[in-house]
């Protein structure tokens, strides 16, 4: 304060308000905000003006108009060309979510597995993983997607399909075809049993932890819960008399009819996204594990803990602290990278809604705006969830 007053004193006599530091900073901030505001107003005005001048239609009415084109992949809802552009949006959104979700799961498992292998004392194993990581993360993702697509298109043609297990599973360049499950009467009991088993395992895990804290007695939580989660639905399935039929695919005309087709566009995108992101995740996991000093392991062994316990109780909780934040970015990257689907025609939101709908309706601003909002929402949700998880696993510092 005193320095400022001194400055004011020196700059007095109406020389300039600019010698006042507070005024100066306020002035520049106001100026920057004003310029930014003026710029935004100009952009909005200019866009609206030009759209009007060229007679381009605006508004969101197109969402209710019939789309008129077909979409190859729509696993969660019925879609035909007579449905609306609004429906196209949902189909595209679900396709994006599907490939991102499965990609995140696969990348996480593979990434953690590779990260641990990378630290293996076995020279060959760790070198192989090293080569995989360096190769995968240094080749652009788009090329990897195209590579996988080319590989799947190099499979045999429809008439020369590879068949497995007595023609039950069929593989050709149009995709992998598996029997379609047709649940019969009473099948609903199976998912109900699964949900029950899940609740029971959570309850048992909590109870076991409490009991251990109170009495020191340890229960085989993992084995019991696995048995429950697998066993209970199986039991329900058996009790209701195996009410599940399968529709098998048959070669009719150009293609196989019936069954569930997993298309090469989806598989190529999923493989490429998972393998690419797994390479980054494995490095994150390796760094996380290495960040825990070796003394911790030695101390744990000295206390007589088993190696698996050392990993689970000593190393992982400390490593996760380091692992979670970069992992969040990887998940966000994977989700956003899924928009490269456009290159091979997988109908995600950018290919279908942000591409074809944009083109058929010509309403670029509205469509791009909605598409951007979708990615923003998905990203914020992922990052919100990961922040919550990060808070849970972070060490409580005393």
């Amino acid at each position: 304060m005193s320095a400022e007053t001194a400055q004011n004193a020196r700059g007095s006599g109406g020389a300039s308000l600019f010698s006042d530091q507070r005024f100066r900073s306020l002035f520049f901030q106001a100026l920057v905000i004003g310029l930014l505001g003026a710029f935004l107003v100009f952009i909005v005005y200019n866009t609206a003006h030009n759209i009007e001048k060229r007679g381009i239609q605006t508004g969101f009415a197109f969402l209710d108009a019939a789309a008129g084109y077909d979409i190859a992949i729509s696993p969660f809802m019925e879609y035909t060309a007579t449905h609306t552009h609004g429906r196209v949006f949902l189909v595209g959104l679900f396709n994006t979510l599907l490939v991102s979700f499965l990609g995140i799961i696969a990348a996480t498992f593979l990434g953690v597995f590779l990260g641990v292998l990378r630290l293996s004392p076995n020279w060959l194993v760790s070198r192989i993983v090293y080569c995989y990581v360096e190769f995968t993360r240094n080749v652009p993702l788009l090329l990897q997607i195209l590579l996988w697509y080319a590989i799947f298109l190099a499979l045999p043609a429809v008439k020369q399909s590879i068949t497995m297990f007595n023609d039950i599973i069929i593989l050709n360049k149009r995709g992998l075809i598996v029997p379609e499950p047709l649940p019969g009467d009473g099948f609903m009991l199976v998912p109900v049993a699964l949900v029950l088993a899940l609740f029971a395992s959570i309850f048992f895990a909590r109870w076991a932890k409490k009991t251990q804290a109170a009495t020191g007695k340890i229960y085989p939580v993992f084995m019991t819960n696995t048995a429950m989660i697998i066993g209970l639905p199986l039991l329900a399935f058996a009790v209701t008399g195996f009410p599940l039929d399968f529709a098998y695919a048959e070669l009719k005309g150009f293609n196989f009819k019936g069954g569930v087709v997993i298309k090469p566009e989806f598989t190529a995108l999923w493989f490429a996204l998972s393998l690419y992101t797994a390479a980054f995740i494995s490095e994150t996991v390796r760094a996380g594990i290495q960040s825990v000093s070796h003394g911790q392991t030695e101390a744990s062994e000295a206390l007589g803990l088993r190696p698996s316990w050392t990993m689970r109780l000593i190393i992982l909780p400390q490593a996760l602290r380091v692992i979670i934040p970069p992992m969040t970015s990887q998940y966000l990257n994977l989700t956003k990278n899924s928009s490269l689907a456009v290159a091979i025609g997988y109908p995600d939101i950018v290919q279908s809604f942000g591409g074809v709908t944009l083109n058929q309706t010509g309403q670029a601003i509205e469509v791009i705006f909605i598409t951007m909002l979708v990615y923003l929402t998905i990203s914020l949700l992922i990052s919100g969830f990961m922040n919550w998880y990060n808070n849970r696993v972070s060490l409580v510092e005393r």
Partner: protein
Amino acid sequence: MKFGKVLFAAAAATAMTTAAQAGTLDDIKARGELNCGVATPLPGFAAPNAENVWEGLDVDVCRAVAAAVLGDPMKVKITPTTSKERFTVLQSGEIDLLARNTTWTLSRDVNLGFEFVGVNYYDGQGFLVNKSLGVSSATELDGASVCVQTGTTTELNLADYFRAQGMKYETVPVATAEEGAKVYDEGRCDVYTTDASGLYSLRSTLSAPDEQIVLPEIISKEPLGPLVRHGDQQWGDIARWTLNAMIIAEELGVSSANIDEMASSTNPSVLRLIGAEGNMGEQLGLDAKWAYNVVKTVGNYGESFKRNLTDTLNIERGINAQWKDGGLLYAPPMR
């Protein structure tokens, strides 16, 4: 000084708005170059030749407009566009003219804010299949996988056709004709569908062109033509009458080879075309010899068609013949 900055920004903003309103013709003359959007390589319509110079029926429209406006058919900056991005590129002003085998439809004319200036190729959608499938009609395509370029009227016609026929199909979307050719060649789809001219063009790029047949059914009307943005009528007129000049030149028998002898013609229509009579150029805001330049350097419509489509792809004139030869080409009189 700070206020000077604000003023400068405001001035720049105003300048940008006014620039967007200025005449396209003046912009091109000032630039000395026409920005023209064409197809990503589609042999016959727009593709670079061995010397990397773009050629084709659509490219000739670009060159003709450049010849009319700037007197030189080579003063064109060619921008290849995919079917998806073509409209945005034109709307945003990145190109002045889009000559990219684009179908003239009501919603494109009205909703997208464009102005189609004519038709330079009357086309219709067809199907290309491999002979080995033993298909002889499009009505036998139930259950087939169909490759189609996204964001096209083709995609909509395809859905309509199969729905009307009560048949099912698997759509395999591709972004460009080149990519489509690759995927079709690989056998990802049984059928490739696009405008018939595009099918002939695509067939020439496949690994075994003789193994492919185009099915007899033509399922749509596809009048393909160049288009400009709404809002600059003068520019639209120039593009429209450049195309008409090429068509009229053929009708009058004026070609790049004989146009210099035509100065002694007694036909007033010919004299108006080559600028020896009347003030057509002045009315359009162009040089009096604008149409002369077009025909002299690019040729008339028939020459362009023969050079780009008949000689290389064996495409017949068909309905694209002059009206007096039983075709659909009919340019309004230039007077």
